[in-house]
Structures are given as C-alpha cells and as structure tokens.
C-alpha cells in the first residue's frame, strides 16, 4: 500500500499524472471516500491527462462514457461510474458496465466502489484508492489487486 498526501488540488493533479503513466488499458480505479473527499476531482484530473476536458459528476446518470480522441493512444474510453445511488450490485449490470470492465482499450473509474466490492472481485487490474478528508489536506491510500 502506498500513501499520498495531497495538500491541494495541484497535488491531486500530480497524482493523477503518476497513475495515468502506468495505465496500459483495462485498468479499474476503485475510489472510496466520503462526500466531498475529491473522487470526482481526481477523475477529472485523470481525464485531463487524456485531454478530456468536461468530466462532470455521474451521480445522476450513474455512468458516463468519454471517448479519447487520440490515434496514438491505445486507450479509447474512460468510463466514469458512480455507485452513490446504487443499492444492489445487479443494477450495474443493466447499465452495461460489464462491457467495459477490464476491456483492453478502456479505463473504468468507479466512485463509491466500496458499495460493489464483492462484485469487483470478479475482475482484475483494480487499483483501490481510499481518500480520507482532513482539515487542510487529503490522504490517498493506494492499493493494487
């Protein structure tokens, strides 16, 4: 397990850069952390690395798919999932999430992933990131499975 301290958003942006450098495709980023921890913010910075400018909270629609427009890049999609309003795991199935998990040309980022921990056991290449919110900084604990 690795721990990062992010004092401000710039640090979070740096961390996103470090994460993205290691992506080969098929990765799943499973985010945990309370309201306001910075899950959407981290996802936005991951998106920025791929020149995706407008990532917004997926809480309402539960899943958003963003295309990466770069012929040189083998990763073609970022899928942003939010389990905040989900109650049962099988609900995700109806949204077509299965198509994207571990797909070689796709990165899936999941907010409130702790709610579907069991389901995610069926997949590989998962990076769990737990964000703890402190008064003036965030602690990000990163664990790969």
């Amino acid at each position, binding site marked *: 397990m690795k721990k990062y301290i992010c004092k401000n958003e710039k640090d979070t942006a740096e961390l996103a850069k470090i994460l993205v450098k290691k992506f080969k495709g098929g990765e799943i980023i499973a985010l945990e952390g*309370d*309201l*306001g921890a910075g899950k*959407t*913010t981290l996802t*936005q910075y991951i998106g920025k690395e791929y020149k995706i400018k*407008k990532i*917004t*909270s997926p*809480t*309402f*629609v*539960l899943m*958003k*798919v963003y295309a990466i427009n770069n012929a040189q890049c083998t990763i073609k999609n970022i899928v942003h999932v939010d389990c*905040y*309003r*989900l*109650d*049962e795991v*099988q*609900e995700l199935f*109806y*949204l*077509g999430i299965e198509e994207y998990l571990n797909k070689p040309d796709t990165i899936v980022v999941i907010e409130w992933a702790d709610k579907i921990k069991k389901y995610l056991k069926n997949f590989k290449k998962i990076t769990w990131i737990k964000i703890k*919110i402190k*008064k003036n900084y965030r602690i990000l604990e990163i664990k790969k499975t």
Partner: protein
Amino acid sequence: MKILAIESSCDETAVAVLEVNGQNYKVLANLVSSQINIHKKYGGIVPEVAARKHVENIIPLLEEAKITASDIDIIGVVNGPGLVTSLIVGLETAKTLSLLWQKPLVPVNHIKAHIQANWLKGDSGSLQNILFPAISLIVSGGHTSLVSLSDKCKFKVVGETRDDAVGEAFDKVAKLLDLGYPGGPIVSQKAINGDPHKYKLPRPMIDAKNFEFSFSGLKTAVRYEIDKIKTIDDQVIQDMSASFQQAAIEVLIKKTIKATQKYKAKSVLLGGGVSANNELRLQLEKAVDELDGVKFYQPDLELTTDNALMVAISAYFEYSENKAKYVNAWKKVKVNPNLEI
C-alpha cells in the same frame, strides 16, 4: 392537433394528451405515476427497479388517458437524457403505438422540454408569447445549464456545471445533514426558518467571466462547516440549509442576469426540477424585474417536476418545424442517456 406524450427518463412515468389549435391549447390529460415512495426506501434511484415500475405503470396510464388511434395526430416521447433502462420503456411503448396507429413519432430532449414548458400556463389558454432572444436557466438533479434561445426550437448552451449539478448538491447537503430522500425539497423546507447568513459559504465562480458553474466546492464547504459543529440540532440544520441554499441561489441568479445582459435577452425562462424551489423563483423574478424590458417566465409548479405535458408541447414545436422528418421515425429513433441540448 392532438399530441400524445410519454416521459419515463428517470423515476416518474408520465403520459399526457395536449390539444393545440393555432395559439390556443387545452390539456386533455396529464398523468404522473411517481416512484418516489419506492426510492425513499433505498435513499436513491435504483435503475432496475425504476425500469420495472415504468413497465408496470405505463399501460394503466395510457388506459387512464382514454386515447384511441383516432384521437391523436402525433406521439412525442423523451429519448434522453436519463437512465437508459427507464428511457427504453417509454420509447419502446411509443414506437409500438406509432407503428400500430401509423402516427408520426417525435423524439424529445428532456431538457429542452423543461424549457418549453414555459409556453404553457394553466390547463387551457393561449401559448405564451415569449420574445427572443431568450435565456433559460435549467436546474435539476442532473443538470445546471444556461441556454440561449433564438427561437422556440433553436438552443445553444452558453454555460454548464463543471462538476455537480445544483440539484445534486441539494441532495448531498441533505445527506450530510441526515435529512433523507428526496433531499432537495427537505433542505428548502428547513431553510424557511433558517438564517441564510449564519454560515459563511463560498459562492463558487460567481465572478468568473464565463457562464460555468461549480457546486462540488460548495458541498465540500458545507461538510467542513458541519465537521466543526459539536451537536447538529434543528437550529443548525435550519441555518445550514438556509446558508447553503442562499449561496447556491446567488450564483445561479448572478450568472443568469449576466447572460441576459450579454445576450441582450428579452425573456428569461426558468426550468427543471429545482425550479420548484420557492426562494429561487422569488429571488430570480426580482432580479429580472430590475432589468429594463426583460420578462420573467417560470413553469407552473406541477410542470417543474418531470411530466409529459412539457414533452407534448416540445413534440408539437419540433413537429411543426419539420413534419416530414417524423413520419417513419419509429424505425430509427434510439435512446441516448447522454443526449445533449
């Protein structure tokens, strides 16, 4: 012309029949079957449950509307944005009727329909005479946008939220204050007796030169404030609700007024689920009234939540612009959960 309209994009199943003759209209049916009590149990929307309920609700609603093929001229249905599983139920029903009855099918954008609800006022009467250009503020659980209109069906997004929608922020603040579901209305209820200046909360992007919004920072600021307080009693809840609501509303209003001035709009139209918020209605109306020669429109309260009447008027406007386009549309129309304006 009589329009049958169906809406099932989120957690309400709705069917409406609207008659429009020239400038006059009459509501023949406006039925909604809400799932709010089911979702209350879960504290949120469950897509599969929502879809199943839409299936159960839609036929009884159509029966209740008492329509037959000979009663209607066109069918309007929302094909996005929304939850894919829910949207499919409405669209497949509408497609089937369109084929069976040989009536044109008009796909409707849920957000545009929220804006166009402003042309209706009451159960019958004449369509509002809204002057262009117009600026519309759309506020809901999934959207926060400023849209300019050069005509009834000509829209252009001039600004949107960068992160959370304002309705989502209301819901999340409700969660932080442990207020239950649906959070937004409870927060505004609690705010009535609260002090809007008790807690100093940020007004994100209020002075930015663009028309974009951001509400994640406001949500997070509420969280920080709550963390500082030892006991969260009802007074705290009321004051926090009022302070949050005021911060959110101020940003919405200031940006709407700026956009109105920049685009020299003659009308300001409010729309979307959060437009039921009384403080927002009052304060925005007041701010628009202070501008010279700009008229303020807000939808009837029953048209702020998801409904099919707004879908009917939207389908009517779209159909009137290009009739040929919709004749065999049932063959091609697809749902698009991320449909843009």
